[in-house]
């Protein structure tokens, strides 16, 4: 399955911005599940300098600086990825979750040691017994890890209200637990807080969702989570759509929480009032004509 993602971010300022430094996580990250076929970043006005590198977590990141006065900034990212569309794993055959906790405490191989970085608090995710208590209904003794995680994802999908006005990018997870409202980012943070409070590793995944009538959160960049099962690797869950991502989710970057992989962040000098508009479109690419004749 080929998907084309177009992500446009526009800032309009009431007064000119004299200088602006920006860091973006917009290039889809290659993984076992997806290949990156095309990527182009278009920035208007043209930046004075632009650098690309991999961040701490191995995500592609682009840094640029506009040093001429401007009152509009448009960042457009075009990407085409090939998803292998593998069916989600059978959740029942994963190890019991407490066994995973034990392995994470022992950290006796490089994989568990690396995964343990995702068991701690992070800038936007606090831990606590209240999250462990919420998770406990799904994480019953002896239950396979992925089955329990899928159940938790399902409970968030059914028990929480998707509401774009309820939260902001800095709403604390405890608040989300109380109001049970928010957007994909809040649901992902909450899911992660639950797992980490049990001692399980969970990471935040930023990306896109194929546009469609049944996709929640496809009009902007999307977010979901990944859970680590020792020996098998990381498995994605999308609590906003109650699915395990396969052929509809384009992964851009992952980290401990939103703050590690914010799609666009910057600091602008001047500017007065600012308005932001974000548009995302993800559509299938028809296979090339010659492919049919093969």
């Amino acid at each position, binding site marked *: 399955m080929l998907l084309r993602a177009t992500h446009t971010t526009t800032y309009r300022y009431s007064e000119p911005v004299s200088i602006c430094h920006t860091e973006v996580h917009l290039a889809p990250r290659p993984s076992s599940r997806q290949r990156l076929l095309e990527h182009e970043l278009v920035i208007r006005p043209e930046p004075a300098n632009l650098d690309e590198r991999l961040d701490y977590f191995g995500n592609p990141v682009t840094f640029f600086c506009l040093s001429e006065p401007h009152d509009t900034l448009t960042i457009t990212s075009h990407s085409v990825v090939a998803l292998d569309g593998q069916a989600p794993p059978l959740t029942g055959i994963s190890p019991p979750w407490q066994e995973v906790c034990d392995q994470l405490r022992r950290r006796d191989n490089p994989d568990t040691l690396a995964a343990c970085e995702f068991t701690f608090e992070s800038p936007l995710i606090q831990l606590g017994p209240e999250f462990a208590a919420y998770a406990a209904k799904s994480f019953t003794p002896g239950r396979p890890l992925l089955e329990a995680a899928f159940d938790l994802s399902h409970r968030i999908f059914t028990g929480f209200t998707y509401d774009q006005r309820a939260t902001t990018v800095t709403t604390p997870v405890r608040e989300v637990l109380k109001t049970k409202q928010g957007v994909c980012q809040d649901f992902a943070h909450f899911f992660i807080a639950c797992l980490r409070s049990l001692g399980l590793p969970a990471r935040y995944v930023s990306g896109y969702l194929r546009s469609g009538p049944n996709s929640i959160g496809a009009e902007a960049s999307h977010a979901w989570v990944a859970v680590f099962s020792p020996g098998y690797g990381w498995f994605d869950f999308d609590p906003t759509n109650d699915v395990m991502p396969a052929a509809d989710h384009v992964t851009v970057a992952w980290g401990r929480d939103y703050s590690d992989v914010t799609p666009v962040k910057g*600091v602008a000098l001047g500017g007065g009032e600012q308005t932001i508009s974000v548009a995302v479109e993800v559509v299938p690419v028809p296979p090339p004509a010659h492919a049919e004749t093969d």
Partner: protein
Amino acid sequence: MKTLDSPWRYQPEEGFYDEVLQPSGAIRPHWRGLTESILTLGEGGFRERWKEGQRLIHDHGITYNVYGDPQSTDRPWPLDPVPLVMDPAEWRSIEAAVAQRARLLNSILADAYGPQRLLKNRLLPAELLYPNPGFLRPCQGIAVPGGTFLHLYSADIARAPNGNWWVLADRTQAPSGAGYALENRLVCSRVLPDVFKNSNVRRLAGFFQAYRQTLTALAAHQRDNPRIVLLTPGPYNETYFEHAFLARYLGFTLVEGGDLTVRDNHVYLKTLGGLLPVDVIVRRQDAGFCDPLELRPESMLGIPGLVQAVRCGNVAIANALGSGMVESAAPSAFYPSLCRQLLGEELKMPTVATWWCGQEGPLSYVASQLHNLVVKPVFPRPGDQPIFGARLTEVERRQLVSKMRAEPGKWVAQEQVALSTVPVWEDGQLAPRHVVVRVYAVAHEGGYKVMPGGLTRVTPSLDNLVVSVQRGGGSKDTWVLGGKAEEQLTLLPPTSRRLPVSRATFDLPSRVADNLFWLGRYLERVEAMVRVIRSMLPRLTQESDATQASGLHAGARLLQHQGYIKPTSPHLEAPLLALLYDGARRGSLGHSIHLIHSVVWPMRDRISADAWRILTRLDQQFAAEPPPEPLRLSAALDLLNQTVITLAAFSGLTLESMTRGEGWRFLDIGRRLERSLQMIELLQHALAADPVVNRGELEAVLEIADSTLTYRARYQTSMQTDLVLDLLLIDEANPRALVFQLARLSEHLEQLPESRSRTRRPAEARLLLRLLTNVQLADVSDLAAPESLQPFLQRAAADLRQLSELLTRTYFNHAVTSHRLSAP
């Protein structure tokens, strides 16, 4: 019984190691020189010497800030006159241990930001790295010059009852206090010059010279004459005094985050003349606050894009970003094994016994021994205090243990050390206090060079075991004996090639130019007010002479207009005295002088020490209690006379000791502008407001304008409005005349960067030229009529206010705020 002979009556407590006295009561050999000299001086002599010391502290303006104290931004630095004396042989082992620890911590940082072998080989638990807020992920993999993260390191060390030294804490983020150690030395060596000379105390200058060399060598470009800046979080920081002091001592430019900008991955200093490249940043600001783009986003103290500039190798930062990671107490539990692993050496000086509770063995031990331990969070947040187990009740202890069991990896416990004691001078005798020494090491020539001395701090009382100047502790000079007649060191940098002659002094950040401009304005404003009140007070006491009394009206109208006194005041004496003595009142003289003090404070590195002394004394004079009622008026006149002289001395010293560069220029522009405005307001309220001007008013105006002598020399006793106006407005030879100020302003504007770089005059110069011509061409016989004087003065005042705005917009636009952008 251990005591020292009378008159000192020094009597240390049993159970602690005393630095001066052996258990037998004999004085330790390395203390004999000092104690004998002190005894010879006698109590009275010592008291005299110490008075001098306190005067020096005051005059040098050695201060620190207390967080959360709205009463004052700065307090005198607490220094005790009796230095701590260290034996040379013992110091050699301390030196070796501190240098080793600096190497060890540097290696740990290099590993954490590099291959992370310690983590992979399970030598350092993940709990001490991954959740560590000092571990800055954006800095992972950044190559630091020479592999050095810690350019300056400090260790707090203390002596246990058995005589051995222990490390209590490590400072790696931005170690403070080295500058205070140097100031302590400057004061102490002046108070006890004879003893100091005879004791062969090792000198500190070589250490700072090494620090300077290290910083200079960090520059990637302009290696012979790099631009080095000292980055401070600002005047409200606890140790701002030290930042300004070190910047001046080391010859660096003191900057705040807003003074720097990143363009094309290079760091620049925003100066009046444009952007100047910066090679090295000496960081006194926590790394997390240094770049709102890649580090803590909520901080606007930082410089957006700084991390990327560092990553590109275009600027070096000392200490490296991320080096605060090893300040936590918990990892020190692992230092003995890490030292063997990383350096192949045994740790020379132990850390005070430390248990990280993230492992079951230590946790049970800590839970059972809580009464002997001090417990802290592994990564303390601001405001977290150490918990002394001994002070907890049984219930509180149980609660603490259950908190620790819930999240064991977040807690660390340390043995409570019985700190050794030293004598402090208190109420005419010597009393014992607990002592901790902060020792400094600077990266130098591939290793670490240790300061032969340090910042010694003492507890506020004997039953208190926390040394903190923040919480009432004191400090001491630290004398390491065994110095030779050392060669004189200079801090001028050695360079590989000779530098060309330079006329530039300090780079002038726009922010500082702004401050200087306002300093000039405030100074002049205060002087004008003093002169007005001074002209009024004598007129109040003289028996109702009609001429004299009418002289009061001019001043009264002016003060009312400026909002200093209420228009309804029937009696002037009380409100005028309140202007002098009510320091809490906005607009009072005391308040205005305090305002000057606060404008000068952030520019400590640019104001001469003499000028600062004068200002501090003036501030003090106004803070003093007013005299009793019947003498108040006469004392007030005295105070005003003194103030006029002191202000003149301050302005004179400041202007005379400043290089004729842009800083001087902006200070003088501020003065001239304000003096012009004050003259205009005086004339508006004294002459233009009243259709009939009498002799008394004219006399008062001349007196306030400091032009009585000139007027009398020209016109003897005749008093005419047009002649007064000529002298005060148009006479180019009168340094108080409006035209004189405008002519000076015009000269200044010609020399500013905007004028020099353009062929056409900028707006501010054109505006001023028009105003100057208007004044020069004015006809005083016309102006003597209030209906033509008033609009003339109004227009001039409006022009001057516009000039002030134009200057602000052109030169001080650093105040523009930044915004964070964030989008999903």
